[in-house]
């Protein structure tokens, strides 16, 4: 997975509260046998004029030319609440989103972000609003910069906000580890357990 250290990018504001995973990726967009191909369905209900259609809604922020290539989202309270579908994170990631800044996140969604290399940053609502006001004035020029090493978000005018993130989550994101890679760092312990367990419960092992 791509490591997350610093990132600078076009930032789109979507400040409504309670953007749930069904809005992020409607269930009708999840018909595939795969994690891939979901980017197209991201925010489908808002992004396209008709359910299941592909004609872009000109007003929707991500469809506006000045927001092309958006890689950071600004969200409202409780971003990613609702159904536990991990497809929401897969869709955001495939679309090209690297980080989401919001006052708070749905807890399963937050964990799914960390597990998939997407950085969720919690900042107070007034800060998120201030950031939105800045980027809206000139989205292409006024990009945000995120430094995970320093744990800061810096706006185009140089104002800088620190944020908190759990040390283990930060380690995973900075090393580009997903949960499997993180566990595989403990491979020796798993093998030692199996060796001892095989002597204790030999019947469990079919090979």
């Amino acid at each position, binding site marked *: 997975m791509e490591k997350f250290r610093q990132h600078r990018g076009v930032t789109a504001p979507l400040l409504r509260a309670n953007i749930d995973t069904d809005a992020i990726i409607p269930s009708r967009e999840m018909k595939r046998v*795969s*994690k891939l191909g979901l980017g197209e369905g991201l925010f489908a209900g808002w992004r396209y004029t008709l359910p299941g259609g592909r004609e872009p809604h000109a007003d929707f922020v991500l469809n506006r030319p000045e927001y092309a290539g958006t890689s950071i989202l600004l969200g409202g309270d409780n971003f990613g609440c609702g159904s536990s579908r991990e497809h929401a994170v897969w869709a955001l990631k495939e679309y090209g989103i690297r980080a989401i800044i919001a006052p708070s996140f749905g807890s399963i969604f937050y964990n799914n972000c960390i597990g998939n290399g997407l950085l969720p940053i919690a900042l107070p609502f007034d800060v998120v609003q201030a950031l939105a006001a800045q980027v809206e004035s000139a989205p292409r020029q006024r990009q945000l910069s995120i430094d995970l090493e320093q744990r800061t978000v810096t706006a185009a005018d140089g104002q800088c906000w620190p944020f908190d993130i759990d040390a283990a989550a930060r380690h995973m994101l900075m090393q580009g580890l997903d949960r499997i890679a993180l566990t595989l760092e403990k491979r020796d312990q*798993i093998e030692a357990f*199996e060796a001892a*367990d095989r002597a204790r*419960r030999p*019947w469990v092992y079919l*090979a």
Partner: protein
Amino acid sequence: MGQSLYDKLWADHIVTALDEQRSLIYIDRIFLHERTGSIALQSLAADGRQVSKPAHVFCTMDHIVDTFPGRGDATLMPSGRDFIEATRSAAGEAGITLFDVNDANQGIAHVVSAEQGIALPGSTLVCPDSHTCTLGGLGALAWGIGSTEAEHAMATRTLALQKAKSMRVNFRGQLNPGVSAKDLILHLIGAHGAAGGLGYAVEFAGEAIKALSVEERMTICNMAVEFSALAGFVAPDEKVIDYVRGRPYAPTGADWDAAAAYWRQLRSDADAVFDAEIDIDCADIQPTVTWGTNPQQAVSIGGRIPDPAQEADNNRRQTLHKALNYMQLTPGATIAGTPIDAAFIGSCTNSRLSDLRAVCDFLKGRKVADGVAAVCVPGSSQVKRAAEAEGLDKILIEAGFEWRESGCSMCFYAGGETFGKGKRVISSTNRNFEGRQGPEVKTHLASPLTVAASAVAGMIIDPRHLMGEHVDSEQLANEG
């Protein structure tokens, strides 16, 4: 302080502690099905990872596959074939065991993993499917996981987990006549709520549980998740050991002896302390049926549909209104006597051989009421063969049931099989959520016996009424 069975199973599977809350837990068996397993296998491969111990990973085709006789890969559900084909090729590449569409051992994941001896007492087993807890009936610690966790388990043979709280539910005394395992679990959820087990691993215990067969215990554990429990299980005993002996993937020889000795000592210590304990007197349990849109909305067969007007709490009143509105029922009416359009016997809750025997004992010499569509779907191809060897298929067909190939079938709707829009169904399954069995379908959960009796009566009925009648008419015939 003594340890609970859950404490012991947890301790036996700790690879290492990760932090204050979480441990890395060893996973003995992984089961997949074509609906979620396909995605997990493909995604694992796409990330360049492998199934690290393919011998411990199994997969079946149950959710999407058709259950019509002569079935192939085509399904009623649009794009179902894609899932089946993707699963077949991903399972082949991963080198795991697949019970394919027409394999002699195909069936519903949780039925197959018990009958093949894949789930073992005291083992950890996960499957990306919420009803994996069924295998707790064997004394396994088994639970449903998400697709990404399934990838994690396949790649590392472990999961990073926080230990749940422990609960014991004691079913005291003996079952009333006509009452089955399904009624016990519906009663528990009705009395203690669909969230009653939230955050707990639940041990089912007490004389009534000890007296149940292994298959009946699986019925109870199957619905532990409808109680919001993480897992539900029963301590293994001689019945379980007899059940497991000789199954295809069960241990043999010296391994068998060692395993049986280990299983025999798996139980909660007499002085074990639980975070919560519930006592239920089985004398209070009658055949139980759901009237609403979650399994908590259940009443005993002699009971009445609740009246929102009698409910003081505003939120609860709204909930009742909503459920009654969907179910199109009259507040305050008796649940018995509600006319039905269809009856379904099947699912991982109640589709094993003992369920079909109970149904056929009742159905012999009776007919499904006119206008009621009745379908029976065996839980596995092996159950199907065993039932046919006993002639159960003939009894069902003569009574007016359709007899199908095995699979999940009408237990859940994903664009495939359904009785039709808005139909009222009495069903031996485990979920009565809105739309679970098809658009606007109204589901009443009940035991297989209550489903069979209601199919015959054309309405929801206490099976004991008909059983009484049956005896009477036989007596009359004999006397005449």
